[in-house]
Every structure is written in C-alpha cells, then in structure tokens.
C-alpha cells in the first residue's frame, strides 16, 4: 500500500520564481490497484511521481510504502520498492551498455551488488525468455548496444526491466508520449499485460483522457498540486471522455480550454 499524506513542495522558495507545486496532496493506493493520473501541464503530476520515487524530497507531508515511512529516503534507497518507466525513452536505459547489461542492472534493482558476475548464463536464459514475449526479435540481440534500438523498442525493454524484480509500486510518467500512435498502443497493451500478470500496484500519468479511462481501475485528477477528482468502480465505468471533462469543470468551478487538457 502506498500512502501520500498531505504533501507540500515549493520550488525556488524565496525567489521571484517561487512555484508552489504540491499543495497538500493526499492519496492512498491499495495493493494491486492500477491508477491513472490526469491533470493539466504543471499540475504537479511528475513532481508527485518524483516524490514517490525519492528524486525530490517534499517540504512537508509524509510518504508511506506498506506502512513504512520513506519520506527521508533517497531514490536509490527506495529502489527496492519502486520501479519506474520514464517519459523519455533515453532516460530509463543506458544507451552505451548492451541490452543484457541493462537488463542485468534491473534484475539487481534494490539488491546489494558485489563482485559476482553481472550477467550470468542463467540470467541470459531468463532475459531471452522475457524478451521473446515482446515479439520484437530482441531475444537474439542481447549483446547489441541499447542505443541501437528505436524509442518504442526501448520503452518496451524499460517496461520489461521494471517487472524483472518485484516492486511495491510501478510509476509510469507519460511513458507512451514520445511514441507514434501504433507503437504507443503496443506499449500500452504490454503495460496492461505486465501489470496484470505480476499483480502490480501502478500509477500511470497520461494526457490522454481516453487512455486514462480505458486502462487501470481508478482515475485521479490533479489540479494545482491537489487531488480534485477520484473515481473508481461503477462510477468510473459509466464515465466517458466528455463526462470526465465536465466533472473536472464542476469540481473546480472554472472553465478549461482544450489546450490545457488534450482530449484523447
């Protein structure tokens, strides 16, 4: 279970650029829940995910993973509980290292690393099996440098990497935004499969309302660093994209232009 409790974060405090991004954000994710997150640019979605992963430390508020307070832990100290796929396909992998070396790094996520071989023959067999499920022919290219792969292939491998080790939460920040529509839907289908098969708890940020409603089992909307909408179950099943937009307007009592929220 992931619990964010009244998170506040202000960037550049005390300067003319002062920017309050998280303003009392609270959210609880039950185990096995797949939550989609929407909200306009600058709403604080990425900042929220960075706070969960430990890339940023909130000014106040607490973060609990399975009841343990992790608020003060660094990103690398939380890695055993948090898996993530970045928006930029370049960000989640090392392009100078080979496919198998990248997978080996992910296979040891959150574990002690000693002087044992990084890639053992048994690991290679595992990598080949897993890569074969992608049906991209990558199982025969273990020794290729990651930089040789296309953006879509890299995101697919990143997803695979995130699922090699058990995690308490999987963070996906617009992980299909840099891909063409066909590749994006391939990666989304893969996401659904991996989340379902591993019973993962996941948090996915998207700008597509369609994606937000079609995937996962709960949708939250962030606005100005707070949760303004939280729907699941029956209520969510009845929603369509225009309803979602309407709900948002009613909650905030203000008009949104189409630029702020891209309709999917």
């Amino acid at each position, binding site marked *: 279970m992931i619990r964010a409790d009244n998170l506040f974060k202000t960037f550049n405090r005390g300067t003319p650029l002062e920017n309050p991004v998280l303003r009392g954000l609270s959210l609880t994710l039950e185990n096995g829940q797949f939550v989609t997150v929407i909200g306009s640019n600058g709403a604080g979605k990425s900042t929220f995910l960075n706070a969960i992963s430990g890339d940023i430390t909130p000014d106040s508020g607490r973060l609990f993973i399975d009841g343990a307070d992790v608020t003060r832990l660094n990103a690398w100290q939380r890695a055993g509980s948090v898996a993530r796929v970045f928006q930029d396909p370049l960000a989640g992998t090392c392009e100078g290292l080979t496919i198998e070396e990248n997978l080996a790094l992910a296979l040891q996520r959150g574990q002690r690393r000693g002087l*044992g*071989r990084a890639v053992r023959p048994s690991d290679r067999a595992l990598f080949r099996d897993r890569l074969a499920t992608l049906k991209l022919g990558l199982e025969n290219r273990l020794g290729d440098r990651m930089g040789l792969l296309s953006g879509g292939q890299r995101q697919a491998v990143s997803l695979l990497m995130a699922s090699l080790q058990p995690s308490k939460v999987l963070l996906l920040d617009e992980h299909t935004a840099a891909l063409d529509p066909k590749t994006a839907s391939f990666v989304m289908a893969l996401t659904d499969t991996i989340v379902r098969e591993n019973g993962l708890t996941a948090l996915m940020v998207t700008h597509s309302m369609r994606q937000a409603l079609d995937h996962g089992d709960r949708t939250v909307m962030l606005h100005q660093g707070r949760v303004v909408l939280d729907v699941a179950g029956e209520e969510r099943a009845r929603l369509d994209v225009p309803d979602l937009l309407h709900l948002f307007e009613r909650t905030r009592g203000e008009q949104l232009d189409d630029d702020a929220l891209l309709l999917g």
Partner: protein
Amino acid sequence: MTLIAFMGAMEIGLIFALVALGVLISFRILNFPDLTADGSFPLGGAVAATLIAGGHDPWLACAVAAAAGACAGWLTAWLHVRLGILQLLASILVMIALYSINLRIMGAPNVPLIGSPTVFAPLIDADGANAWLMQPALLATVVVVAKLALDAFFASQAGLSMRATGANARMARAQGISTDRMTLLGMALSNALIAVAGALYVQTQGGADVSMGIGTIVVGLAAVIIGETLLPAGSLWLITLGTVLGALLYRLLIALALNADFLGLQAQDLNLVTALLVGLALVLPRLKRSLRSGKRTAS
C-alpha cells in the same frame, strides 16, 4: 631508432598505460573530468621514493602509494558529490594542494634513489646490462595484470553499477545504485592506478622530483583518445586494450619525433610535440569522416 631507445620508449609507455587506464575510469567510465592526475602521479612517486630511500620494501612502497592516490581521488570526488563543487574545479583544488603535500612528504624538491633497492633490482644483473629488457618486462606484467583485473571488475555487478553511474546517473539511482558511492569508489580506483604509475616511474628514473607530474593528465588523455581511434568502440576489454596500445603508440611517436634529426627537435620540445599529437588524435576521426564523405560525393 636503436633497440635500446625503442625499449626505453616502451618502458615509459607502459608506465603511462597505467595512467591512461586511470584516466579512462574517470573521464570515460564515470564521465568525471578529473585533473587530479597531475597531483596524484607525483604523490605516488613522492610516497614511494621517500619510503624506499628510508629502507622500506619497494613493493610495500607501491602499495602505500596506491593507498595515497586512492585518498586523493576520493577527496576530489567527495568535494564534488558532498560539497557540490564543480568536477573540474574540485580536481584542480586537490591537484594544487597535492603540490605542497608532495613537498612535505619528500622534505625536499627531489629524492634520489640511486643505489636503493627497487622492484626491478632482483631481476637485474650486477652490472645493469639487462636493465633495458627486464624493466619493461616487469612493467608489462604489471600492466597486463591491471588490465585484466579491470576487465574482470567491470564485468561484475559492482563494475556494471559504476559504468551505469557514468552513463545515466538517474537511471542508476532508480535501479538502487548509490551513484555518490560509486563516484567516490571509481575516483579512488582511478587515482590509485595513477599513483602506482608514479611509484614505478621514480624507480625507473632513479628518483622523484616535485615537478614530475606536469602534463600527466594530457598524456593519459592522449593515450585514451589514440586508443579510441585505434580500435573500434566495443566491449570494455577492447577499450582497455586500446588504451594500453594508445599509451605505447604515443610514447613511440614522441620518441620518433625527438629522434628524427631532420626535425631538429630537442627534449624541451616534448610538451609541444605532445600538444600537437593530442590535437592530431582529436581531429583524426573527423578528418577520416570528411575524407570518406568527400570520396562518396566525388564518385
């Protein structure tokens, strides 16, 4: 060039192969522009010369030199990761501090080692006739061991973590790697190698001098860059091999340039030749590329 002159070039080339392997770790693997080398090379020399002159075992002297170099590298990394000082600046601070420290260690601007037992002494005849062969032979053994040990380390879990730290620090942290710790460790390893090179250097040159470190980093970088032009980028053992070969080729080119009478170059022109060679090695890949594309448009 005579055989003796050739072996002399190889001898220094082998010593600088160790420097180059250290520079490879900082500049290429950790992506940390580090100039500490100009201080840690003479640091290794100062520590080793002082210990050997004081009657200590020369191998022990090399080990202590390595530890001293590791401390220097660790300090540079610490200034960066803990205090947030710019990498280049942190290394310059440590480098100039080491100049004073080296003088303190030696207690004088130079420490002669004439007649003191060195690591080479047990291999060399009483009249020193086979020194030209045995010194490079022992150094070659040290370099091969260092290269193979590095290859093994970088194929390990910890070694791969270090490579990930330099390649993509954010990704490395997301995988649970303490990039700070890896940077400290890698910089210590890099400068330990460079200090050992300094320790061996003073034993081939018959003494340590406080100014022996000037230009160390340039030579190390030259070797790395020549190695990269020599061999295609590939697995890490190929890169370390290229680095070692680059150091040897570099010293050979220097010796050839200084030996070619028609050029009229003398020993004091060494730094000028170095700068020219490094400049050439830097533009060579670009030159190769433009030549190739030029040919294509012509045909």
